[in-house]
């Protein structure tokens, strides 16, 4: 082995195992060695299942020897956000309440990845019940950013962001209800795909807000996200919101040029009050896209503040409804911030909630009209790079909600509209923290985002940079 397997991309490692350049055991050992090195610094894993992973790797290698291997990811070790039900396994959802919850079913997304041949390394940390954008968790401690462990990872897919960035897993499932894939992708310097609402089945994924929840991957490149999306997308009888029809060839899309495409830059909101370094990186990203032949034009969007408000109303009510029984029976078992945010949902009248739901169609139609002449948009994923753990540890203080809303103000409108968005590493601050840009597409047009993201990554190396353990 001349190359450390754990440093390879998902696509490359899957091919290397299939072609017997190295074994599934060697790939798994490589990940486990990095996990042992990084876990004490990052707190990225909820559970590490080394012995089981190695046994599964040996079985995968045996299947290859017998010629019975099947699946595009045969023998590839992965770990996922600890909210995907896996029958017979504890799925904590980052909570005290579900600390001992053993799933009796397996989520559709996870099952499809298993059918492709993946093996399980363990489970990844997350914000309690996926309700927090920072990576803090009052029960299990914060996850630390591999680029600077004094800084947050973003959440709620905090362990997924940190583990992919530090090359502890080749990719990881996250979930995105208000920015929970794109925030950690941005803060940790990895590629994260928030899929269109309905693109991937939510069955067996812990719910937070049934109207906003989406399943998606965090990985090292757009190419890797395309591979994973192609395996997971499609209709599912267990989730009536998962759309049918043919699944596009996402991998093929990543090989296409972006010459002649039209990419919109919002004239306002997403470019307002940016940290200067985020603004600089946005400009540099636009320059790269132009060099690759894209036409970058300004677009005037409808009032995004109304979308963020509507998203907050829908999310707060639906989360409170899911949690109502535990709010009555076990309020003391929530962390202070999550309890506070769940209580917010009690204060919203049913009429207001339904108005926010009724407005989704017209709001999406207005957005579609505004972007009709572009193939996709580009905008920062967040206005700042990763804050420190100390400065973002606001708990349930009076300013907590405003801190949360500021961090997620560029992601929530997209959740409300149900649109796909790909966060790609686009640069670094002078202090060495990554910054991501989100590509925002039309409903169900993930292929366009993956095409643009892959084109950007062919001529930049931000996604290939690996943090060093101090």
């Amino acid at each position: 082995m001349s190359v450390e397997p754990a440093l390879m991309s998902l696509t490359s490692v899957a091919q290397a195992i299939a072609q017997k350049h190295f074994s599934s055991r060697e790939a798994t050992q490589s990940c486990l060695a990095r996990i042992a090195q990084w876990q004490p610094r990052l707190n990225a894993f909820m559970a590490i299942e080394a012995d089981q992973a190695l046994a599964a790797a040996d079985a995968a290698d045996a299947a290859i020897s017998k010629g019975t291997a099947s699946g595009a990811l045969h023998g590839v070790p992965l770990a996922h956000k600890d909210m995907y039900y896996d029958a017979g396994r504890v799925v904590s959802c980052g909570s005290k309440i579900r600390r001992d919850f053993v799933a009796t079913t397996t989520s559709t997304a996870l099952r499809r990845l298993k059918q492709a041949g993946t093996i399980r390394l363990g489970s990844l940390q997350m914000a309690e019940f996926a309700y927090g954008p920072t990576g803090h968790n009052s029960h299990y401690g914060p996850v630390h950013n591999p680029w600077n462990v004094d800084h947050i990872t973003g959440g709620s897919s905090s362990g997924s962001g940190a583990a992919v960035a530090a090359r502890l897993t080749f990719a990881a499932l996250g979930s995105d209800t208000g920015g929970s894939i794109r925030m950690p992708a941005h803060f940790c310097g990895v590629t994260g795909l928030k899929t269109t609402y309905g693109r991937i089945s939510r069955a067996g994924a812990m719910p937070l807000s049934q109207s906003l929840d989406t399943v998606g991957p965090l990985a090292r490149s757009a190419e890797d996200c395309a591979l994973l999306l192609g395996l997971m997308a499609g209709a599912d009888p267990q989730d009536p919101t998962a759309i049918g029809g043919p699944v596009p060839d996402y991998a093929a899309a990543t090989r296409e040029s972006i010459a002649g495409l039209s990419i919109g830059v919002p004239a306002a909101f997403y470019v307002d009050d940016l940290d200067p370094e985020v603004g600089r990186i946005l400009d540099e990203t636009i320059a790269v896209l132009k060099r690759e032949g894209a036409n970058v034009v300004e677009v005037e969007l409808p009032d995004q503040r109304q979308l963020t408000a509507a998203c907050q109303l829908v999310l707060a009510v639906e989360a409170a409804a899911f949690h109502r029984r535990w709010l009555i029976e076990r309020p003391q078992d929530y962390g202070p911030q999550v309890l506070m945010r769940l209580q917010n949902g009690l204060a919203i009248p049913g009429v207001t909630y339904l108005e926010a739901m009724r407005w989704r169609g017209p709001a999406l139609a207005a957005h579609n009209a505004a972007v009709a002449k572009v193939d996709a948009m580009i905008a920062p994923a967040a206005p700042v790079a990763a804050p420190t753990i100390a400065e973002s540890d606001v708990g349930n203080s009076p300013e907590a909600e405003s801190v949360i809303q500021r961090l997620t103000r560029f992601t929530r409108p997209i959740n409300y509209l149900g649109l796909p968005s790909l966060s790609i590493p686009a640069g670094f601050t002078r202090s060495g923290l990554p910054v991501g840009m989100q590509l925002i597409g039309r409903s169900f047009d993930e292929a366009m985002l993956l095409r643009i993201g892959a084109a950007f990554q062919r001529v930049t190396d931000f996604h290939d940079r690996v943090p060093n353990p101090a």
Partner: protein
Amino acid sequence: MTRPTPKEIKAMADVAGVPVSTEVAARVANSIGPAFEGFAAVAGTLPFDLEPASFVLVQAAGDPT
């Protein structure tokens, strides 16, 4: 549309079977108030026949596949 007051929030929480203290009600009012204000321009303006499922129709109309 105005943001709910702590007193109103306390009453709503009681009705929901999840009573909150006066202090928590004040914190909730502070947290959720901006969402009410942000949505105020939309609230009360939607046409009679509009229902939430219109979102799915608009979404499907934009599906490139």
